[in-house]
Structures are given as C-alpha cells and as structure tokens.
C-alpha cells in the first residue's frame, strides 16, 4: 500500500495553492474543534470529580445557622463527618487581591480527603490559634512559605475594632483532583468566632461526608427536615448536584461547545467536499489514463479517498497539536477557575477519528465519480 503514496501525494499537489488553503482551513477548524472539545471535557471532568459523597448544608434563605446544628447533623445516620464553616471576605495588601478565608476546624479535612495535609500539620493547625493552611496556588501567587505571617484586611470587625487579621501559615496544601490549582485559605473557626463582634456562634455552611453516595438525596432531605421549622431552615445537597447547577449558571456549556463544533464541522465538510470535487473534476482525464493502465474502478476510488484522508489527517494533526499547546494558555488566563479545559491524548485520537470521518464524507462523492467514469468518453474529452 505504501507504494501508492507518491501517486496520492502527486494528486494533492496538482494545484498547490488550493491544497495549501484547504489544508490551512482544516487545520484552523481543528484548532477550534480541539479547544471546544477540551472545554466540554474539562467541564465534564469538573462534574466527574465532584463528589456525591460530600454534602453541603446551606441556609435556605441566606441567614447564617447556629453552630449547634453541626451536632444534630452528625447524629443523622449515614453522616460520617461534619465540619462547620464561616467564610470571611478579605484581601491581601490590595483590595484587588481578594481572598476568602474559611474558618473551620480539622474536620474540614475529613470531609475533603483529596486535600493532602499530614496529621502533624493538622495538629499544628489545631494548636496554633492564628494558624492557616493555604493551597499551593495561593502560596505560589503570593510567595508564601510555611512560617510566614500573613496580614489580611477584612470587612469583619474584631473586638478591638480593627479590620486587620493576621495568620501564621502552618501548611501548604495540594488538591489531588486538581493539581496546582488548590486556592483555599483555611483558618481556625475558633479564632474567627472569638475575635469577631457580629454573627457570633454562627456558621454559613456545614460540609458533610456520608458513607453511601446513593443515599445522598435521602440524607439531604432528613437533614433539612430537622431544621425546617427553626429560625434558619436549611437546604442540603451534594457537591455534585450543586456543581451541576453552578455550571448551568454559566449557561449551557455543553450545548454551546457542541453547537460550535457542529458549525465548524459543517463548514469544513462544505469546504473540503468542494475542494475534492474541484480537484477530481479537473483530473478526470488523468484518472481515465490510470484506468487504461490497469487500475481498477475500486482502485481509483481508493486513490481519491486516500488523497482526502491524507489531506484531512495531516491538517487535523497540526490543528489538534496547536490546540493542545494553546490550552494551558487559555487555562492560565482564567486563574480563578478550576481546571475547566482538558485535552488528554484520548481526545486527540477522537479528533483524528473525526478528521477521518470528514475525509470520507467529503471524498466519497468525487471518489464515486471517478470510480464510475467511462474511460472512452473521458479520453475523448467528453
């Protein structure tokens, strides 16, 4: 089969300009295809690593909940860990460097097993009142190391009337599911609650871990029933369903990416189909000569399809490679978001498969034309 390559190659270069332009179109289209597939896969990944065994209990109407709720939640069958949380809005040095400080206790890490923190570090955090564990992304961004003292400004006022809160970094934490992107600032709830004037003894969320993910909905309802008639009714849902709604809040990402891919592929089919049709039409006499030399009908059909495949495959390869290189750049321009764009090697294979489909779809009609051509008429110029 390799012996036919020079012939196939020669067919492509009959009109160099046309081949080059079509090649560029296909390559560009596959750059977009790669990026869109990457975004689609990235968001799917976000939902995938969301855990159905992690639940959040939030206030139903926005008002914070007493911390005592935590004990009652812990008694619900199926709940293996409960951590209270208070989020404090702060900034580091410049109001532009906004940061959410999470006031909680070591049970937080029991509910988030994907965060890597050692027992020793947890001990240190517990014993250091002003201690904080920060994610690698934050640490890298501000150049923080274990042992650093970090002053943050908040709108929450302390007992002394100050808005400055100082923390000591005791650990730098990595997220196994999203390497390099962990950006949480975790501190001791006790410190926050002691120092603050308002909302004492309140939590704005409880994070729970349950033993059976398939009971998530049931457990959520039980918890909400506990507090339905209290001053702070709750709304409990799994991280997974929360993320699904959250992703939806951006709009239907999957619909969007698939629509763009659809438009691009349609455009590509039209373009490539036209090029192949034109190219073949101009070379009818040459295909007729090949038939006189003894090339079978199926043989010349194969030659045309091969041309289409070579063109599409090479161009797609270039486009997908550029996409793969561009993706880290895109991810970096949205530093606040988790990994939302993902292009593993499997995706390149899929893209390649799509390229082959396009090649066949656009090459089929011209190939059939050539298969069926009447040698005598073609040679006579009819």
């Amino acid at each position, binding site marked *: 089969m390799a*012996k036919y390559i*020079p012939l196939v190659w020669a067919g492509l270069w009959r009109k160099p300009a046309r081949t080059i332009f079509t090649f560029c179109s296909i390559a560009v289209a596959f750059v977009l295809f790669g990026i869109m597939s990457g975004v689609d896969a990235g968001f799917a990944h976000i939902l995938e690593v969301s855990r159905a065994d992690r639940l959040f209990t939030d206030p139903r109407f926005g008002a914070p909940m007493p911390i005592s709720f935590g004990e009652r939640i812990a008694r619900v069958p199926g709940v293996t860990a409960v951590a209270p949380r208070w989020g404090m809005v702060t900034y580091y040095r410049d109001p532009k460097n906004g940061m959410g400080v999470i006031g909680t206790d070591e049970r937080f890490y029991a509910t988030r097993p994907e965060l890597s923190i050692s027992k020793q570090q947890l001990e240190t955090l517990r014993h250091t009142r002003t201690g904080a564990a920060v994610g690698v992304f934050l640490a890298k961004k501000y150049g923080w190391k274990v042992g650093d003292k970090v002053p943050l400004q908040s709108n929450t006022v302390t007992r002394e009337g100050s808005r400055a809160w100082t923390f000591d970094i005791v650990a730098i934490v990595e997220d196994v599911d999203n390497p390099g992107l962990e950006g949480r600032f975790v501190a001791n709830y006790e410190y926050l609650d002691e120092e603050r004037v308002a909302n004492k003894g309140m939590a704005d969320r409880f994070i729970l871990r349950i033993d059976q993910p398939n009971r998530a909905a049931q457990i959520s309802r039980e918890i909400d029933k506990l507090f339905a008639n209290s001053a702070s009714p709750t709304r409990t849902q799994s991280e997974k369903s929360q993320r699904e709604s959250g992703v939806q809040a951006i709009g239907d990402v999957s619909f969007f990416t698939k629509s763009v891919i659809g438009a691009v592929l349609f455009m590509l089919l039209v373009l490539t189909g036209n090029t192949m049709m034109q190219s073949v039409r101009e070379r009818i006499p040459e295909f007729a000569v090949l038939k006189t030399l003894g090339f079978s009908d199926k043989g010349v059909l194969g030659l045309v399809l091969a041309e289409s495949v070579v063109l599409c495959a090479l161009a797609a390869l270039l486009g997908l490679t550029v996409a793969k290189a561009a993706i880290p750049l895109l991810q970096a321009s949205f530093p606040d978001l988790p990994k939302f764009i993902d292009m593993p090697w499997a995706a390149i294979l899929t893209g390649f498969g799509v390229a082959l489909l396009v090649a066949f779809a656009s090459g089929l009609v011209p190939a059939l034309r050539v298969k069926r051509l009447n*040698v005598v008429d073609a040679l006579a110029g009819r």
Partner: protein
Amino acid sequence: MTAAVTLTNVSKRYRRGKENIEVLHGLNLAVESGEFLALMGPSGSGKTTVLNLIGGLDHPDAGEVTVAGDRLDNLRSGQLTKWRARHVGFIFQFYNLMPMLSAERNVELPLLLTRLSKSERKKNVRVALDVVGLSDRAAHKPSELSGGQQQRVAIARAIVADPTILLCDEPTGDLDRHTAEEILGILKLLNERQGKTVIMVTHDPKAAEYASRRVQVDKGQLSDETGTA
C-alpha cells in the same frame, strides 16, 4: 502464426444526444502476432473505436473480439482491467503523463499493480527508459521535457510491464517531423527486435510507411489500402 487480434463481425453504436450513431458495423479484422499495423481513415471513421475494442476499453454491441487468445467480449469489467494491465500498452497523441510525477514514477505506474518489490520495479523502469533512450532524464517532470521526450516516457510506460501488444492512437500527431521519425523508429524497434505487435491509428501517410501493413477504416468498415471493401 496465430493471430494476435481477431475482430469478427463487430458492430458498435454510440449515443450522441438523441441519436444512435453506428460507428462500426460488421467489421472484420485479423492481426498477426508481431505485425506492425497502421489503421488509417478520416476523422469519425471509427478507427479509435477499433483501438478501444482491441484494448478492452469498450465492449462491442455485436460480434467477437479475441486478443492474445482471450475472448474480450466475454470478460467482465474487473477481469478486463486485469487483462489489460497484463497484455496491452497504450500510447496517446497527447502523451497523458501525470504532470506531478517524474518520468521514472510515470513509467513505474503500471508496475504498482504487480507484486514486484520496490527494487525490482526500479530495475524494470531503468530498462524501459534505456530502451527509449531517456535514462538521463529519469528524474524530470513532464513540464521539463520536450514533446518528443514526453512521448518517449509514455512509450517506456507502455512497455515496462512487457505487454505483447502496443496500441497507439496518433502517437506522432503533436510532434514535428524530425521528432515524429524518432518516435516511429522506436516503435519499429520494439516491433522488430522485441516482437511486439503494434497497432497504430494515424492519418499521416508518412507515419503509416513505418508499418508492415496498412488498412483503411471508412464508415465503420475496413478496406485495405488498395481500396475495395
């Protein structure tokens, strides 16, 4: 000597627009193995049609076509193609080379259909180019060759798979006198030295002189050069 080509009572009709034109009717022709035959006649007389039938490019509507012992009118399209690759070499007026391939690669084309290895193909191509005297131009593309040189490449292509019969349709029609004579000389060489049967369609009497026999095709029927049908 057995006849290389026998056409018996062959008729062929073509559809032109709404009309059916009978190009050949009841034509009989016998060509001996090793002959150099010139088919002559006015334009539209059907001489190219005869060539196409002999080469298995077309089926007769009636009659029998036997070439190199095989009944062509009984073969199906796929079988015909394989048969053609083995037994026949074509040479056209306008050379019909692949513009983007070098002379070597053009000549190699028929061999791609065989099971020969790459080195064997290369060897056969060399030999063919030697015969037509174009070894030094093997790497050139058709656009870099003169008309005569291109026709020589076409001849090399036609003989590289060692067919027994060469079919030539106005091979010197586009060449000047001197070059035409060179080409006809090569054809004569292939006929006399290698015993190839050559059937050449031409309207040029000077070209026809190279042939060992001349026949006239007129209004779909044959007559030899002495004139009677």
